[in-house]
């Protein structure tokens, strides 16, 4: 397979998905609204909880919540791309694509590019709203690069996972199977309060949740005091390695069915 066929398939598919996303209100509106709802509800409705003894984050509560919503927007950019894959299979488009594409790896790459663009658009909107609402970023340029690179790596994990599920099941009914694990991983991290202030089973779940580490690092980047940067990147890169294998398996499954 030539490199040209790979990139042309990836580029064409990415363009189609990005175009569909930007021009179809039923796709773009929920993607933009849900992170904004969470941001507004948590940053506005719960801002008082930063006065609980033991809550010692260096910036305000809006910044604390932004760290979470950034990861949520990135993750759901990938999750919603998984939905697009499922929709393409259900409509029959993906089967025709499998027949026409000379390099099927380009199909996954195309969906990945569209997931990155979706996440970038959502993160931009959320960031603008957060800045208006009082986001306090004291991290430097390197911190900001780390912040967003980590978020986009997580977007890649979610996209690869969603694509793997969607290519195996090839129906929109795969939606809950794509969305629920992502949702649980996100919300079983220290979303509202620091890890030490969590109680009960969520405290135990957060201890083994890889996103706890990622979220802590993201919040550290925001205030220029990142912690456990290397472990956080290693965890996300490991997740990417696992989900690459998972999505390759999905692609093989779809190829057998095509």
């Amino acid at each position, binding site marked *: 397979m030539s490199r040209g066929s790979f990139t042309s398939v990836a580029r064409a598919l990415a363009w189609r998905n990005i175009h569909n996303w930007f021009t179809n209100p039923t796709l773009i509106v929920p993607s933009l*609204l849900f992170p904004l709802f969470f941001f507004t509800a948590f940053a506005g409705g719960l801002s*008082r909880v930063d006065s609980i003894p033991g809550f010692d984050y260096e910036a305000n509560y809006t910044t604390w919540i932004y760290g979470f919503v950034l990861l949520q927007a990135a993750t759901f950019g990938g999750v919603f791309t998984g939905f697009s894959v499922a929709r393409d299979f259900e409509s029959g488009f993906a089967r025709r694509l499998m027949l026409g594409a000379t390099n099927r790896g380009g199909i996954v790459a195309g969906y990945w590019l569209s997931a990155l663009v979706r996440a970038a658009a959502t993160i931009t909107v959320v960031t603008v709203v957060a800045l208006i609402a009082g986001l306090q970023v004291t991290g430097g340029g390197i911190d900001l690069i780390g912040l967003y690179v980590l978020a986009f790596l997580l977007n890649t994990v979610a996209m690869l996972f969603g694509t793997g599920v969607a290519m195996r099941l090839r129906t929109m009914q795969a939606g809950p199977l794509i969305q629920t694990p992502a949702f649980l991983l996100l919300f079983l991290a220290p979303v*509202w309060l620091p890890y030490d202030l969590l*109680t009960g089973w969520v405290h135990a779940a957060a201890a083994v949740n890889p996103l706890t580490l990622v979220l802590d690092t993201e919040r550290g980047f925001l205030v220029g005091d990142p912690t456990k940067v290397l472990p956080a990147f290693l965890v996300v890169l490991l997740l990417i390695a696992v989900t690459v294998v998972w999505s390759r398996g999905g692609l093989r499954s779809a190829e057998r069915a095509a």
Partner: protein
Amino acid sequence: MRQVLLLAQRSVIRTLRQPAMVFPSVFFPLLLLSINSSGLNSATRLPGFPADSYFQFAIAIPFIQGALFSAMSAGTNVANDIETGFLNRLSLTPLRRVALMLGQLTGILALGLIQAGTFLLVGIAFGDGLAAGPGGVPVLILLSLTISLAFGCIGAWVALRTGNGEAVQGVFPLFFAALFLSSMSLPRNLIETDWYRTVATYNPVSYMIEGIRSLFIAGWDGEALALGFACAGGVAAIAMVAASMALRTRMVRT
């Protein structure tokens, strides 16, 4: 009357025989309750917080989330009846519009009853029970059903106005916003952000939540209950009239 009962029976059977409609509307609110109550329990340390455990404070939320799912179910069912032509056939009968609407929404009330019973049992099993005592149970169920009816009528109105299920799904984020911009997470007097507190104060969903919450943590709070019933009943009445008018328009088109 017999036709209304037949419609009601059909609506109940159709709703309850769809596990995909019943299960998420009970399971997801409970899952969120479990996560919230564990993740935010330290919020009870805030001066003036009205309960000793966040679970007891947050148990009111599933009742509203369940009602939001009811709205989607009601809207989807009505939209389905429009798309399949069932409503066209009904228009040939001498049924009154309000009776037809109530018959269509009976399934949602049955679903609301299942939700309220389940959430109440969970509240008793894992929390401190009802502060209002056993007498609070029928009041809680009645308020919960009124809220389900209110959101169900909104779902039906959207379906009748648009005639398709996709549009009903499209309004879900608006319902979600109404829930999020309320006193869901903290009591209004503890909300620090001014604009958010103002929105929550004007949002009828806040009073629905506070009405249910009062039965769990305060006992008999006449003001909270009166406001809860007034808001739920008011929204139900307005949405019912709107849905009935939309039904008339749709039947005229038929």
